[in-house]
């Protein structure tokens, strides 16, 4: 009971915060909400299955680009729907062709996917439409963007909670441990992986679509920035990718640290980013939540 009520109260409080903060504060809120959503959506697929996807920005950028292309042609709701459909279709194609691959091959493919999508869009824009950048003029306030992102993030965490308790979640956990056992136990590997991958990708695409009005000017090298994939992975790992609240727990502090670093040390930002990432991999291999639990249990056992 308390597990449902507490998050709902927190959500209601978070929805009121924009009335209390400055524009700069609101920008931070949007950024934090975006990364909570991205990291949670990433973990929905990669957290349990251990299929490390470095393709987050392929979907995020596709979402943003969809809005850039369609924002004048269709009403906003229809644009979001299109973005979700395109992201889902892309994930389905990628999933059908690559999820049969073993771990490292999948990582490599996802690593290049964002670059491929970026190159294809650039090529298409330059050769077919003749423009590279596009402007997004939508009458959407920052507060509205924040509320949309908050809702998407909350929906992602709620969906993850539901998946974790469902047969799908159980199948994903088994796949993460041993695919051979999973198959011989009656789990349809391809179907389970594709469902989770598509769910995750649709959310990532929507996140890109919702934040896109904040860019105003969109071009492939901006919205397909690989740093976004990178940040998403490190945040989910820091908190614990196989825990419900892990990605959110990792996303908020790291986002704030990155914001601070990028405004104070713009030149050495990538260096610090790399060091932080390596630090997380070495110091928190199973995530903060799991490590705190082990520590706590260890203390308790030592006392007994």
């Amino acid at each position, binding site marked *: 009971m308390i597990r449902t009520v507490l998050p709902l109260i927190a959500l209601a409080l978070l929805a009121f915060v924009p009335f209390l903060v400055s524009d700069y504060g609101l920008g931070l809120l949007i950024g934090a909400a975006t990364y909570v959503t991205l990291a949670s959506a990433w973990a929905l697929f990669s957290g349990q299955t251990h299929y490390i996807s470095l393709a987050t920005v392929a979907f995020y950028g596709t979402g943003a680009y969809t809005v850039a292309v369609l924002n004048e042609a269709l009403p906003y709701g229809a644009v979001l729907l299109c973005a979700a459909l395109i992201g889902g279709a892309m994930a389905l194609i990628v999933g059908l062709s690559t999820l049969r691959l073993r771990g490292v091959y999948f990582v490599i493919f996802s690593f290049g996917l964002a670059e491929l999508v970026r190159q294809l869009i650039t090529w298409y824009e330059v050769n077919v439409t003749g423009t590279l950048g596009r402007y997004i003029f939508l009458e959407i306030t920052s507060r509205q963007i924040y509320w949309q992102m908050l809702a998407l993030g909350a929906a992602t965490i709620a969906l993850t909670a539901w998946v974790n308790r469902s*047969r799908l979640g*159980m199948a994903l956990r088994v796949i993460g441990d041993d695919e*051979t*056992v999973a198959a011989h*136990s*009656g789990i349809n590997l391809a179907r389970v992986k594709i469902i989770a991958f598509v769910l995750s990708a649709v959310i990532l695409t929507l996140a890109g679509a919702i934040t896109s009005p904040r860019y105003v000017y969109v071009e492939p090298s901006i919205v397909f920035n690989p740093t976004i994939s990178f940040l998403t992975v490190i945040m989910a790992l820091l908190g614990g990718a196989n825990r419900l609240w892990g990605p959110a727990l990792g996303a908020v502090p790291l986002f704030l640290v990155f914001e601070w670093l990028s405004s104070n040390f713009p030149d050495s930002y990538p260096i610090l980013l790399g060091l932080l990432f390596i630090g997380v991999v070495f110091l928190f291999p199973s995530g903060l939540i799991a490590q705190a639990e082990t520590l706590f249990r260890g203390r308790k056992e030592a006392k007994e």
Partner: protein
Amino acid sequence: MSFLEIENAVKQFGGLRAVDDVSFSLERGEIVGLLGPNGSGKTTLINLISGALPATSGDIRLNGMQLTGLRRDRIARAGVARTFQLVRILPSLSLMENVMITAVFGRNTHWGDDAKRVAMDALDMVGLSARATAAAGDLTYIDQKRLELARALAAEPEILLLDEWLAGLNPTELSEGVALIRKLHQGGLTILMVEHIIDAVRALCPRVVVMNSGQLIADEATDAALSDPKVISAYLGGDVDA
């Protein structure tokens, strides 16, 4: 029509015929030993039946249903459960979850309390129910083997394929293991077991099939097979035709 029918099964790896035109069948409720020297194709045959490898040619039918060509998960849901020669457990899940998965995704697709009950019964059968909530990664080797068997049982299978499940047990554990398999057989389960421990085979299986170099060289009563010159020379490395 027999319960499990294997007809002219062939598995070719490049130039090697790991399973070479093997045919035999099992009746419902039968327990049969699958013998043969190392590398004779026993595990490959188990892999063909369970779908881990696609057969190059031939037919395998369970209860009249064609298994060849089906995916592993479809074969599992058709009622084929197996253990692995090198034991495979899910280290990050609890014993209960390890066993529950086949109840959930197997033939009868249980869920919730129903699945827990099936899993608990299976754990009980192998003597692990007291530790249902422990993490599987912490188990000893023998307990991992027990857990793997419990997982196969929770599938409520039509047929159980055991790939050297008794290997590596000490004498006490071995007699417990033999008693456990006997109990499963007496409960009506059809079992095909790859086994090297001849005493266990003698105690459990009235009938054996013997493979050598991919071919079936004997399919007869256990006592007859163990004194069959073809079988003896296969084990001793002599010429099969001698």
